[in-house]
């Protein structure tokens, strides 16, 4: 899969996962990688970029052992962006399915 395309999809997944609950980076990677193949070097730059764009807020949480962890939470702007992405994505998939011949399309 084209890496740019994959990155766009991962970005949407990152927004979606954090909309469900606040997460720290490693936890997010573990959750996403249960479904899609991702690595740290893809996810962390996305987290940094989206935080810079104001889609995430960050806060630190102390741990009983080890250094405090940086948690990410979705901002209202992030929520809007996610809704926008989801609508675009569904429209895109509908179009693709129509071309391929239905959601149960198999070659």
């Amino acid at each position, binding site marked *: 899969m084209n890496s740019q395309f994959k990155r766009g999809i991962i970005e949407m997944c990152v927004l979606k996962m954090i909309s469900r609950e606040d997460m*720290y*980076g*490693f936890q997010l990677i573990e959750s996403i990688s249960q479904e899609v193949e991702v*690595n*740290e*070097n*893809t996810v*962390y*730059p996305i*987290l*940094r970029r989206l935080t*810079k764009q104001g889609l995430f807020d960050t806060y630190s949480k102390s741990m009983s052992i*080890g*250094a405090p*962890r*940086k948690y990410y939470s979705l901002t209202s702007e992030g929520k809007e962006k996610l809704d926008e992405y989801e609508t675009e994505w569904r429209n895109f998939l509908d179009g693709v399915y129509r071309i391929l011949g239905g959601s149960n399309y198999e070659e």
Partner: protein
Amino acid sequence: MKSKYLEDLKNLLDDYQMDESERLDIINDYSEMYDSWGDKGLMNDEISKKLGHPRSIIKELTEGYRKVERPLPGSEKVISLSPFVATIAFLILGFGLDLWHPGWMVFLLIPVTAIIMEMGKTKNEHLSTALSPFVATTIFLLLGFLYDLWHPGWMIFIIIPVMGIWNSRYTMKKIDLLTALSPFIAGTAYIVLGMYGYWVEGWVVFMLIPMLGILHHKNKAMMLLWELLAIAGIVGYLYIGTTYADSWQYAWLTFVPFIILSFFNGDWEITVDKNNDYRLVIALSIAAFLLTGFLLNAWVVCWLFFLSIPVYSIIKEVGPKERIVALTPFIAVTIFMLVGYYAELWHLAWIIFIIIPMTAVVKNT
């Protein structure tokens, strides 16, 4: 180990124009990741491998950021003065020692100086790739003019594609790096063996290329069988050829099992899509090299096809701003070799190298 990893990462990040807070964010993220993997029970080496060497991930982390330019002290002056220094050196060699030829080669210092100063600004990892044509050309011409060793002196040009591949090593897996280098290792070994009279038996060194390629096969049992058949083919070929008189012409039949397995085992699941384009460029340049070499007997210049490998690597990996400076040495060497060899104008052809400092100056204005 963790501090070393983070320090290496920080040193690399320092070469890019980004806010201190962004840089710190990245370091902190990697520190957190390192700890998280440590909590999972991974050892330092395993964590470093999991996260990737800082050099191999830096490109991904700094996408969209520009490199910091740190001009070497007095670099502009040095570039401007280099033609005069070269001219003075040329005149001293000529009038003083009657070394007009090959004294003219001091003019190669002009482009070399420009490349070092220009690419050194951003600690460009392709600096040695860009310099390799000059090092190779100087050695080639000295071997040729002084010792009449045009052949096998031309083999020195192999360092150019090898440097191009070597400088891309951080973006490749080790096995891909070896596979990419294998044609040059095998080719050099074959020519050296040939010079000692082992042309017939020596070609088996080229088996190194498929044998490394086979290591990409996902099915380990099949890979092992394939490798064993290759080894059996080599051993059998050499044994039959050296044991029985006039047997070389049919000794190659020992490779038949290997060839049959290769023929029926076409469902390769190669996992290195990223580097398939490099393989194609390497394969095409070797094919062009052999075709022009054998058909036109142009061995002295046909190695120029290998320049396509570093050129491709530069086009792909060097930013547009530095690309033209990095590419001009290859353009210049190609023109220099063609004009020098076919028109026998070595003493004039070097002038083409002036395009390198000219490019650097034009780029900076």
